[in-house]
């Protein structure tokens, strides 16, 4: 193995606040090196420096034993073959797979016209080399998230990548798709690529990484061999304290149905959906990507049109035609994509948290100081790390943003929280806070939680009961104490396999 990349004493501050304090990092050729840390630990800053998006304050970058001289920018990074695969893809959705693959060539190659034969040929060759079964003529917007990610990687490879930085590559992938991705990563390793792998899913990291480096508060606190690493030890190093254990407390008495769905159908759910949620219960709903988890949470919140069926809360029949009805009647919804669906990013923390409470108020006016009090209470109970409530939400980290979305519904005093992937892309510390909040929430009388998550471990750890969705059908109703990951995965895939 040879040293591919070496970062020495990298420092970076934003407006006087240090984000990286003398970080050292090494990457070998043919190595998967995981970068771990809580949100705000400096991972993103480091990635952006590698991509050339940020300049360093001081420190040096060595590539193959040679100091990279002068100004390091996006162009230099590209020339060296350092490519970043971001969580949010940089694909052109209305163009085809083949066109996306040739985009770089369109830009860099001389000439005025497009040789479509070359474009097709290049696409077929690239896809074949990576064993991707994607139609080169398909439009990118019609691909699944996993396929888009594969395409993104294919594009990176066509740029002659030597170092590939992957930022939460499995965040939107199902178990099976993750395995396909891991297969690909192992293939890339064989070709001598170095891969920097950023993820919050520690078990996954142990599976795929050779080494891991942990960042905390802008310092690299440890680098170790992945196979020797102990999960609790990693978490301790990331957080700086020991993690808390199970949040379930005591046995749940299921004597009162708080929420029930009967005969619900819409354009996704051709067969009618039926399930109940008991008072104080955390109902976990899991399934693979494309099983209908998000669609389920949207339809019970009134965000998607229903064809029929009834939804009851506390025995009362709800007519949920719009999210507004759901909010008025005591539902709260934390959507999967907090930035695009959960938050008004340029409004202040205060305004975001107050929003759903304001919807529930009557009359034209509202009392600003009452709002401020309500928000302050909500913020204190949630340990949101924000000095100023008047700061726009866009400046918060992922974990704090998610707490703001959650805080909005806690402040609105809703009874049933529907959470769609509430901990996606969130660090361990914030994740524990969110579990604690959910657990406190459901202990109040007439309160329950529906937790939709593709993270089976999370569902097993947090939920009192687990429904498994597959192909828009509920295929299993399980007790997490008497089931395991393997069984749930089997339920997830069984129906899907039967269909295909």
């Amino acid at each position, binding site marked *: 193995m040879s040293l591919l990349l070496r970062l020495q004493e990298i420092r970076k501050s934003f407006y*006087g606040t240090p984000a990286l304090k003398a970080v050292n990092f090494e990457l070998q050729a043919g190595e998967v090196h995981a970068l771990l840390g809580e949100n705000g630990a400096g991972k993103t800053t480091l990635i952006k420096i590698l991509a050339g998006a940020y300049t360093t304050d001081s420190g040096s970058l060595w590539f193959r034993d040679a100091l990279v001289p002068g100004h390091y920018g996006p162009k230099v990074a590209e020339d060296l073959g350092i490519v970043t695969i971001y969580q949010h893809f940089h694909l052109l959705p209305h163009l085809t797979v083949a066109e996306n693959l040739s985009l770089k060539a369109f830009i860099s190659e001389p000439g005025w016209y497009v040789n479509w034969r070359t474009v097709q040929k290049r696409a077929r060759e690239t896809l074949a080399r990576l064993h991707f079964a994607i139609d080169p003529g398909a439009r990118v917007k019609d691909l699944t998230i996993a396929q888009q990610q594969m395409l993104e990687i294919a594009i990176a490879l066509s740029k002659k990548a030597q170092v590939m930085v992957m930022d939460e590559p499995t965040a939107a992938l199902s178990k099976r798709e993750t395995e396909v991705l891991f297969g690909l990563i192992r293939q890339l390793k064989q070709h001598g690529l170095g891969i920097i792998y950023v993820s919050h899913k520690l078990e996954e990291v142990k599976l795929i990484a050779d080494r891991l480096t942990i960042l905390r508060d802008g310092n690299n606190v440890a680098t170790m061999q992945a196979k020797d690493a102990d999960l609790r030890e990693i978490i301790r190093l990331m957080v700086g304290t020991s993690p808390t254990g199970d949040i379930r407390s005591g046995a749940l008495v299921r004597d009162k149905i708080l929420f029930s769905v009967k005969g619900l159908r819409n354009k996704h759910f051709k067969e009618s959906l039926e399930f109940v949620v008991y008072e104080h219960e955390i109902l976990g709903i899991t399934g693979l990507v494309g099983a209908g988890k998000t669609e389920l949470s949207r339809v019970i919140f009134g965000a998607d049109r229903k064809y029929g069926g009834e939804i009851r809360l506390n025995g009362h029949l709800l007519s949920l035609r719009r999210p507004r009805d759901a909010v008025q009647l005591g539902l709260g919804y934390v*959507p999967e994509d907090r930035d695009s669906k959960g*938050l008004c990013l340029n409004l202040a923390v205060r305004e975001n948290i107050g929003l759903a409470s304001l*919807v529930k108020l009557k009359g034209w006016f509202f009392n600003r100081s009452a709002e401020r009090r309500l928000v302050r209470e909500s913020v204190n109970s949630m340990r949101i790390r924000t000095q100023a409530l008047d700061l726009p939400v866009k400046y918060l980290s992922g974990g704090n943003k998610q707490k703001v979305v959650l805080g909005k519904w806690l402040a609105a005093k809703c009874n049933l929280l529907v959470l769609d992937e509430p901990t996606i892309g969130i660090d361990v510390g914030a994740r524990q806070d969110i579990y604690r909040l959910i657990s406190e929430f459901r202990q109040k009388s007439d309160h329950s939680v529906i937790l939709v998550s593709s993270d089976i471990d999370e569902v097993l750890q947090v939920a009192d009961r687990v429904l498994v969705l597959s192909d828009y059908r509920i295929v299993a109703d399980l007790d997490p104490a008497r089931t395991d990951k393997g069984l749930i995965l089997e339920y997830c895939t069984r129906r899907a396999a039967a269909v295909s």
Partner: protein
Amino acid sequence: METAKADRLTQLRAVLANQAVSMLLILILMWFLLSLLSPYFFTVSNLSEITLQTAVIGIIAAGQTLVILSGGIDLSVGSVFACSGIAGGLVFQTTGNLWFTLAITLITGAALGSLNGVFISWLRVPPFIATLGMLGMARGLALILSRGIPIFGLSKEYLWIGQGKVFDFVPVPTLILLAVFALVFFIARYTRFGRFTYAVGSNTEAAKLSGISLRSVILGTYALSGLFCGVGAVIEAARLATIQPAGGNGYELLAIGAVVIGGTSLFGGEGNVIATLIGALIETTIRNGLNLLGVNAFWQYVVNGAVIIAAVAVDQWRRRL
């Protein structure tokens, strides 16, 4: 010592980062320069004239601010202005009743604005297209209703709204201008509707999923924009003692210009209404200044357009700092 200096510098930067503040400084600078260039500029009568000239565009721009804050745009303001003025004028010709006339003018404006809201939220026509269509329809209606003939013969009471002065000093339009801005400021800050307007402009999907009724916000902002066009129409009619079916041409440029000069984001969700007032005053000052300096009036359009582009360019540049 060094840090204290740096702190003060960041504070200064934070204050300047507020477009309203920097625009106010530019306005003051403009007044200062113009008073050096022309002895007539810094006189009570000229400054009072500037507020008077600002009134119509300022009031329309106040409504436009709400629309833009909600993430929309209203291109129809000039035509709605003309159409509501004509509708009121016709009522005046037949009945001669001042209160009835005023009511019809305002109601016509609000109704046409609401129609914009219906096109946008019920028929899902993008705001740009919906209000562009209304720009044509309302102008046509104004010409049809009036048969293309201007309306004259407004009563003395009507003219007082545009030409009168309170305590022989403050022009009535100036007072109306201030009242409208106070009202819109209050709406934006202290009402649920105002907060929802910001939320919808900031992220429509998140606003909807928080339970906000998009329809009522959109309908409300466009209805208010139309209503304020009606208010503007009354003032202009009273100032000029005539109602022109072709009036208000190009007012959308001035109104949208005042909003963006004030730094309100065309993407919605960011900005404030007081900044719009400053933006409108800057536009009027430029016109007034060019007049006093004897520049050909046609240049005013060129300068005004350039100022709008410059203001947004500066705003974009400042956001990247």
